[in-house]
Structure formats: structure tokens, C-alpha cells
């Protein structure tokens, strides 16, 4: 492909002028993608909050067909995944790939137009779900035409990443780029095998469930995990100023993840009407995921070792630190709950929703926030306005998601024990009573999340418009004490 504005400069990643040229080329597309993405994130959280209220007070907004629990609960996830997570991650991936390769984006307007169509697709999908046209599979609720719109818009944006990779020289050395390539290829592969070329209803009976599980499980593995880890592998050396501890360990973690993750999807139907071997294979693969889990988190911990002071002061690495811990917890929880003896209690409960939020929010979104805090000042040449806002965002999100996951896990275990105890919990009402107090408190966790993201959105808008900038010093969290006194 010919790119008029992009002449690759092999040794130029260190050249200030080239960096500025790259940032200038990406400014408009990234800001467009991110500003829409955070809007969808906020909507997703509000829907999650409303759904959590409906779960314990069913008459809340009870007469509205469009807002019934079974529609807004899946919609909250779809807005999160397709509205927030994928476009925001795509922006981060584009910027990191461009910077690593020292190549600027050729035609910045094209990704903006593609991003516009992406958002139109999400609006259409949202209206379809609300009006009762869900396809009935997890994360695959949108009708096929919506996935077609998403696929085309995605390709138009992701293509630039491949153009840059093709022109650049240094991607092979970058661990981040390995992960990004899997994410960039994995997403269209999933949409192709789950929604476009094939879809669940092309199969009969229980195979539909396997296709649905394949899609949902691999969306988490092939987008959330790969992009999230790629971002962390980029940010840690940048912020600490030291390389990743071990490339061999990184390579082991990468390939074992890519090879094993795809086989884990059937654990979503442990005990269900499927051939037993399918589920056994899924459990085996989940246990083998211990290899990438240990390799990756050990590598991160050893790379951060000695730079823990940065976690206190640097906003981006603070978020990344939280994300690394969440990745470890999510992997461990996934491993434990996949075992048949534990699944016996946790299957069909809120525990599985808690695990999803661990990956989607506590791991992935926190890494993306970290990346956005790192990138925005470089992208638009203005520093963040206030350390207090970043502190509020971080602690609100950390407490919010921590509390939410804790409640879903503990509440879910209670729920599972109650279902299994037929003597003391005879009816479904008895079981839901056992879950009730956890559900009521979860509203608080949602409010924390909504508040923290509202602060983030306002802060983002302030930087974008240029309100409240006082100096060009990077905002460090360690200075927060002084600042609140001002």
C-alpha cells in the first residue's frame, strides 16, 4: 500500500520530530475513538447499575418492555465490549504500534469515518436488543447485520495497524506486538466463525451452545487478554526505564496462552448435555493455562521489582499494577472454578459474572486507562489537569470493581450452596433470599464505578478542550497532597 504521508525512518523512534509527526497523525482518530468509547462505558455501567437494582427490586422500572432485566443485563455487557473495550483498545494498539515502528498514520480521516460507522453499528445493535431482537447467545446478541457493520469498520481501522507493521522494522522484537497481532487477527476470526460466515444457528442443537461458548470465551482470550497484556508489556519498560525481565519467559507465556486458551470454552457448560470429553478437554486446557498465568505474572512482577515507587507516583503504572494483580486473580479464579468439584457449587451462579468482570474491568479496562493516561499528554501535547482527579478515578474504580467482584463471588458461592441444599432452601425464593443482601450492596459498587468513570470522562474532556492547564509538568500522584491544599 502507498502511504503519502508516511516515510518510515528506521532509526527514528528516538527522534522527537518523528514522534510528534506520529502523534499528530493519530490525534484525531484516537480522540474520536476514545471519546465515544468512554460514553459507551458510562452507559454500560448505568445499565449494569439499573440491572443490579432490578435483580433485588423487580418492580423498579418494571412496566417498561424495553428495560426488562433480560434485555438490559446482556446489553450492559455488549455496550461494554463493543462500545468501550474494543474501540478504546484499538486506539491504544494503533498508537503503540505506530510508536514502536516509528511510522505515522497515512490518512487519519479514514479511521475516523470507520469509527463513526462502528458507533452507528453499536447504536443499531443496542436498539435491536432493547426492542427484543436479540440472537440469544452471550456477547452475540446483536443481529448479524450489526456484526457486518462492526466487521467492516473494524477492518478499516485495524488495516492501518498492519500497514504500519509492514512498513516498520522493529515489531518482531516487541513483545507487545506479538500480543497485538493475535488480538488484531483474533477478533475478525471470531466474528467470522461466530456471527458472519458461520453463526450458532447454522448448527443444530447443542453444537449451537458450543459455538456460542467458543465465541464468548475466546472474545475474552483473543481480545481482552491479548490486548491487555500487550499494553502492559509496553508500559512497564517505558515507565520504569528498564527492559522486561525475561524474553524467554515472555515467549513461553505468549505461546502457551495462544495455544491453550482456545480449548477452554466448553467449561461454560460443565455438567451440561454435551459429550463428557468436550468438557474434560476444556478443564484440562484451563489447568494448562497455569503456565502462561505464572510465566506472565512472574515476568511482570520481576520487571516491576525495584520500581514499586513508580506505582505510587506514576498514574499509568498505578493502573497497570492493579491490572496485573487482577490478571493473576482472574486466571486463578478461572482455574479453581473450572474444577468439577468447585464447579459443582459455582456453576449457574453469580461467580461466573464476577469472573467476567475481573477480566473485562479489573484487568483489561484498568490497563487501557493506564495507557490512556500515558498516551494523551503525548498525543495532544498537554498534561493532565489534576492528580486528584486521577486519584479519584483510580480509587473509585479500584474499590468499585473490587467490591463488585467480591460481592458476586461470595454471593455466588452462597447462591450455589443454597441451590445445592434442598432441605434448607426448598424454593427458588429461598435461594434468592440467600443472595439478596449481596445484591443490595452491589448497587454501591456500581455507584463507585459510575462516579469514578464520570470523573475520568470530565478530566478527559478538560484535557481535550484545554481547560485548567497550568504547566507542562507531568502530573504525578505523589504530589496530590500539595495540590488539594491549593
Amino acid at each position, binding site marked *: 500500500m502507498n502511504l503519502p504521508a508516511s516515510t518510515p525512518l528506521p532509526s527514528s523512534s528516538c527522534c522527537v520530530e518523528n514522534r510528534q509527526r506520529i502523534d499528530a497523525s493519530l490525534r484525531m482518530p484516537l480522540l474520536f475513538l476514545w471519546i465515544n468509547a468512554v460514553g459507551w462505558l458510562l452507559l454500560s455501567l448505568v445499565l449494569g447499575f439499573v440491572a443490579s437494582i432490578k435483580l433485588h427490586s423487580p418492580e423498579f422500572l418494571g412496566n417498561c418492555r424495553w428495560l426488562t432485566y433480560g434485555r438490559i443485563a446482556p446489553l450492559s455487557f455488549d455496550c461494554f465490549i463493543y462500545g468501550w473495550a474494543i474501540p478504546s483498545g484499538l486506539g491504544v494498539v494503533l498508537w503503540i504500534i505506530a510508536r514502536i515502528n516509528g511510522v505515522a498514520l497515512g490518512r487519519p480521516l479514514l479511521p475516523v469515518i470507520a469509527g463513526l460507522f462502528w458507533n452507528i453499528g453499536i447504536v443499531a445493535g443496542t436498539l435491536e436488543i432493547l426492542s427484543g431482537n436479540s440472537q440469544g447467545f452471550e456477547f452475540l446478541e446483536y443481529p448479524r447485520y450489526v456484526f457486518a457493520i462492526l466487521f467492516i469498520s473494524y477492518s478499516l481501522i485495524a488495516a492501518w495497524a498492519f500497514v504500519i507493521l509492514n512498513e516498520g522494522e522493529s515489531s518482531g522484537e516487541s513483545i507487545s506486538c506479538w500480543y497485538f497481532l493475535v488480538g488484531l487477527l483474533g477478533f475478525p476470526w471470531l466474528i467470522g466463525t461466530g456471527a458472519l460466515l458461520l453463526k450458532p444457528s447454522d448448527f443444530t442443537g447443542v*453444537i449451537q451452545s458450543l459455538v456460542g461458548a467458543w465465541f464468548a470465551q475466546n472474545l475474552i482470550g483473543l481480545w481482552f487478554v491479548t490486548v491487555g497484556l500487550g499494553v502492559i508489556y509496553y508500559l512497564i519498560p517505558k515507565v520504569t526505564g528498564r527492559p522486561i525481565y525475561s524474553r524467554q519467559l515472555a515467549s513461553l507465556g505468549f505461546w502457551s496462552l495462544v495455544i491453550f486458551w482456545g480449548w477452554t470454552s466448553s467449561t461454560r457448560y460443565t455438567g451440561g448435555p454435551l459429550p463428557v470429553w468436550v468438557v474434560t478437554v476444556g478443564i484440562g486446557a484451563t489447568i494448562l493455562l497455569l503456565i502462561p498465568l505464572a510465566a506472565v505474572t512472574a515476568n511482570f512482577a520481576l520487571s516491576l521489582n525495584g520500581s514499586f515507587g513508580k506505582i505510587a507516583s506514576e498514574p499509568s503504572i498505578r493502573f497497570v499494577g492493579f491490572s496485573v494483580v487482577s490478571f493473576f486473580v482472574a486466571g486463578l479464579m478461572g482455574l479453581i472454578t473450572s474444577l468439577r468439584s468447585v464447579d459443582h457449587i459455582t456453576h449457574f451462579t453469580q461467580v461466573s459474572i464476577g469472573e467476567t468482570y475481573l477480566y473485562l474491568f479489573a484487568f483489561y479496562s484498568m490497563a487501557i486507562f493506564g495507557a490512556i493516561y500515558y498516551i494523551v499528554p503525548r498525543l495532544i501535547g498537554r498534561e493532565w489537569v489534576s492528580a486528584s482527579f486521577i486519584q479519584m478515578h483510580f480509587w473509585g474504580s479500584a474499590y468499585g470493581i473490587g467490591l463488585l467482584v467480591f460481592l458476586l463471588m461470595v454471593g455466588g458461592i452462597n447462591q450455589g450452596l443454597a441451590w445445592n441444599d434442598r432441605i434448607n432452601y426448598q424454593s427458588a425464593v429461598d435461594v434468592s433470599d440467600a443472595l439478596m443482601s449481596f445484591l443490595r450492596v452491589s448497587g454501591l459498587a456500581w455507584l463507585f464505578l459510575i462516579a469514578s468513570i464520570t470523573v475520568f470522562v470530565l478530566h478527559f474532556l478538560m484535557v481535550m478542550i484545554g481547560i485548567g492547564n497550568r504547566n507542562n509538568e507531568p502530573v504525578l500522584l505523589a504530589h496530590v497532597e500539595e495540590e488539594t491544599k491549593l
Partner: protein
Amino acid sequence: MKRYPLFFIGIIAALGLAWIGVVGVPQSQLGKLQPQVDEDNSLDVYPINGAGMAQQGHRSFVANGCVSCHSQQVRGPGSVDLERGWGSRRTVPLDYLYADPIQLGAIRNGPDLTNIGIRQPNPEWHYLHLYNSRIVMPGSLMPSYRFLFETRKITGERSAEALYLTGEDAPANGYEVVPTAEAKALVAYLLSSDKSHPLKEIKLSKEGSVK
């Protein structure tokens, strides 16, 4: 860049193999599944491809996301499902031959519905339960699906379909609450939910395992 071709082949092989393993192979194993015919005495065929009202009701089940809280799968001995009376046997792939889209479900905020048609065969109960579940199940957390009903003025005689509602739920004097076509279809679907047909494979194989 030199390493890329090998790298790409590795990635594509990993993704492709996994898909073949967890979708392709099960498809080749189960894709040609045929309904069971009882040759002994009755020539019963199971399952039967449902049509009409029940199928429309299935669409309503999907549209309203009932699967967010209700599963449609009965696990075998060793689980609580049989003890809770959700079925007389575990469900197997054959039971879902004509389920489209299949709604196995992964969350049980409410009870399993695999055999709800035989566990609760009374349509009146289902209408009241959908209108306001707390009428028949005090303390229930199920949403009210009042939008599946119509409140209308009684013209002439009270409709035979009208719900018997008392207290707060009762409509104003001279009005009645009747199910819409969608409510009737949904109830027809629920009443048709019956996976109790005896299966050869379950008698033959050991308890709790499917071939």
C-alpha cells in the same frame, strides 16, 4: 520482519486447531443425530420439531432474555437437579435437536425450566406468574411482564381469558386484564417444555454419563 511468516502460521494454526477441536469434532460426532424412534410398541418419535404457538413463544423467551436467569438443562445424578424435581433424568444432546436458538443457560437466579410444562401444567398459574410473579410466588424476584397483557374495558361479558386479579393488581372497575398473543405464545412454549421422554441411551449407559 523476517520471523513473521512463521509467526503468523503459528497463530493461525493455534486458533484453527482449537476451533476444530471444540466445534468441528463435536459437530462431526453429533451433527448427524437423528430423532429416536420407539419401535417396540408405539412408534413414538422423539423429539418432535415443535411449530406454531410454542415456536413463537420461544422467540419471546429469547427476546426478553429469560436465559439471563433460567437454565434449560438438567444435570445428572451427583447434582441437585434431579433432587429438586427439575427432571426425571438428565438431558442429553438429543433433547435439543430442534432447539433454535438453543437456550441452555449459564445462570440460575431462578429455577431450571427444562420440564416446566409438566412441573406446572396450569396455564392460569403461568399467566398470573408472568403478570406479577409475586401473586403466586410471594418473595419472587422475577420481573413483571405486564407488557405482555392488555388492560381493556369490559364490553358485554367479561372475557373467559381475563386474569383473576385481586388487591393491588386488580384493574379498575369495568376493566379486565387479558393476555396478548405474545403472552399466549410464551405460555404455550412453557407448557410445551417437556424433556421427560424415556431415552434408550440413558437406560443403556451408566448413570450420569453420555456416550
